[in-house]
């Protein structure tokens, strides 16, 4: 995309379940698809185990020998580099970490989480990416209510990891999501206040904000100085019934297993009935001369190639951004 904003595409939707997106030729097809849609930079998402072949630093290095080897692999498909990598320390990394459940909300887990971050920090720096994008806290339904001290403790963990990322020359961006224990705009702002602006930023995901009841445009305007990373996607629904508190909300809410039985929450840009004011949001980024990456996602949608093409069309024709 030829623009003053820097656009990247997330590969997460291609790796849609345990045993897919493993073979290199499948990954090349995804990379070429993203490239044909006008994106020459990608975001990776962390995973676990032998089948997450493009998700785990050790496994990527096992496949490609070195950071440079991995970049060569991307460049075979005319993808030039990596903007960022997403990591959720709360996700049980079944194999590498012995199925441990950790939480930044639990002080006893802090040291282990800081330790776990190291391969990711090294990898992000090694491939020349700019941001380690992280899930700052686990799901609300699994976490005890957080008071100010609780949020402060979470901030402390990320401040420690922020020191590591800064020392490696990369950024650390906390990615708010609609299920997280830090849920309201006030809680999110408190978390930002508890972190060091010099090393810790906010990853603003337009759909997650909207589902969670926070207006992304307003929040961005108020906190533009802290926003260092963007995930751009749309949604047709907001969580108006506190569904995020349901046990197993990952499934009961986001996969329609209970509540309103909504089986798909996230949509491509320009979707019918989309709640995100994408134009206004992108205009706000331009007003504030936002300089980070804007990562478009097909996250939790359907066919990733189809969604990448529809997202590309929206950028080209609704936002008037030339592809090349």
């Amino acid at each position, binding site marked *: 995309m030829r623009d003053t904003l820097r656009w990247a595409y997330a590969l997460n939707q291609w790796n849609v379940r345990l045993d897919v997106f493993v073979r290199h030729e499948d990954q090349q*097809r995804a990379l070429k698809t993203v490239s044909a849609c006008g994106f020459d930079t990608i975001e990776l998402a962390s995973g676990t185990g032998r089948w997450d072949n493009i998700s785990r630093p050790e496994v990527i290095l096992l496949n490609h020998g070195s950071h440079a080897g991995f970049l060569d692999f991307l460049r075979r498909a*005319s993808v030039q580099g990596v903007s960022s990598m997403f990591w959720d320390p709360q996700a049980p990394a079944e194999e590498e970490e012995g199925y441990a459940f950790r939480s930044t909300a639990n002080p006893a887990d802090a040291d282990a989480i800081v330790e776990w971050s190291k391969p990711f920090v090294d990898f992000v720096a090694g491939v020349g990416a700019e941001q380690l994008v992280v899930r700052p806290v686990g799901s609300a339904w699994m976490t005890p209510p957080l008071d100010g001290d609780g949020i402060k403790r979470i901030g402390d963990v990320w401040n420690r990891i922020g020191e590591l990322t800064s020392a490696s020359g990369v950024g650390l961006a906390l990615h708010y999501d609609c299920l997280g224990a830090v849920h309201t705009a006030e809680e999110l702002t408190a978390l930002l206040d508890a972190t060091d602006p010099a090393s810790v930023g906010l990853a603003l995901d337009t759909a997650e904000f909207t589902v969670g009841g926070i207006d992304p445009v307003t929040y961005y305007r108020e906190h533009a100085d802290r926003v260092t990373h963007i995930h751009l996607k749309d949604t047709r629904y907001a969580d108006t019934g506190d569904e995020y508190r349901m046990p197993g909300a990952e499934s009961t809410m986001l996969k329609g297993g209970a509540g309103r039985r909504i089986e798909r929450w996230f949509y491509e840009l320009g979707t019918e009935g989309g709640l995100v004011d994408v134009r206004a949001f992108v205009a706000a980024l331009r007003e504030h001369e936002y300089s980070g990456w804007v990562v478009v996602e097909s996250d939790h949608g359907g*066919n990733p190639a189809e969604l990448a093409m*529809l997202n590309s*069309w929206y950028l080209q024709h609704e936002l008037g951004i030339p592809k090349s």
Partner: protein
Amino acid sequence: MNQQNIKWSYMDHWRSNGPSGPVDQWHSHKTMSAFLKQIKATGFDAIDTFDFRIWQMYGDYGGPAKYQEMVQDNGLERIVNTFHAADYDVRNYAPHIPATHEYILEDFRVTMGRWSEIQLDNIIVMPATLYYDMEPVTEDKLKYTAECWNKVGEITAGFGVKLTCHHEFFCGIQSEADIETFYSYTDPQYVSLFVDTAQHCIAGVDPVALYNRHAHRVSGFHFKDTRNVATGDDHRHRPDSEIMAPTTGKWFYEMGTDQGLVDFAAMMTAVRDNGYRGWISVEHDKANKEGGDYSESTAISRWYAKNVLEEIYR
């Protein structure tokens, strides 16, 4: 900016998955809109279509001109070519049987009238019946067939549209010798050649050499790939060898596929060296077989066009 010699069009085959299973883009306005957006997003400039779509154009969009407006609303230039997928029948519609010619000519008079509200470049035909309906392929039959298309070409020329022949590997005129004989009897003014890279390869004909021999009368291309050459009587299976041939479950792949038999670099070099200017159509036929996906194939083929072919000629 350099003069652009080549533009890319996308031939109408498509499937996407909906709640009721796989559907084509003509299923609804919504699926059509999503199709056109995807084609445009990856960098195609136009679309090709089929003649039989005209009923949906009239029924769902108010006719070809109105449909073309929708195409343009999505950022594409226009409809470039239409494919006249005739239902050949030796009783009444078979180019090698002169007694059926008047019926064929009338069909084209009517068809061209239906399309006359928009300007097409080509109307593409499979010039012969299915192989098993024409064999043995004799010189006389080739001659009758040529006479038929000379007359049809005159009709389409009256509408400013070229009649151009697309040789499926399972049609009556698919071998190199028969193709050569056929063109020796047709009038270059009225009958053009449309080179389908995969179909010729499957039939054992080198598409690059064929193109070089007939470049002066080539009016378009389907760029698609294959991994298999037809063997035995693959080309003679009822009702449709593309589906029924015993050796091969999936014949067609997008450009740039592993183990593809078409030498696209040589093809594009020939396109350049022959000074061709205009449209190249990309076609994916039955791309969703064996786990394939139209969206993905389309993005990858346009990636290949941009990163490999446009480096040779654009």
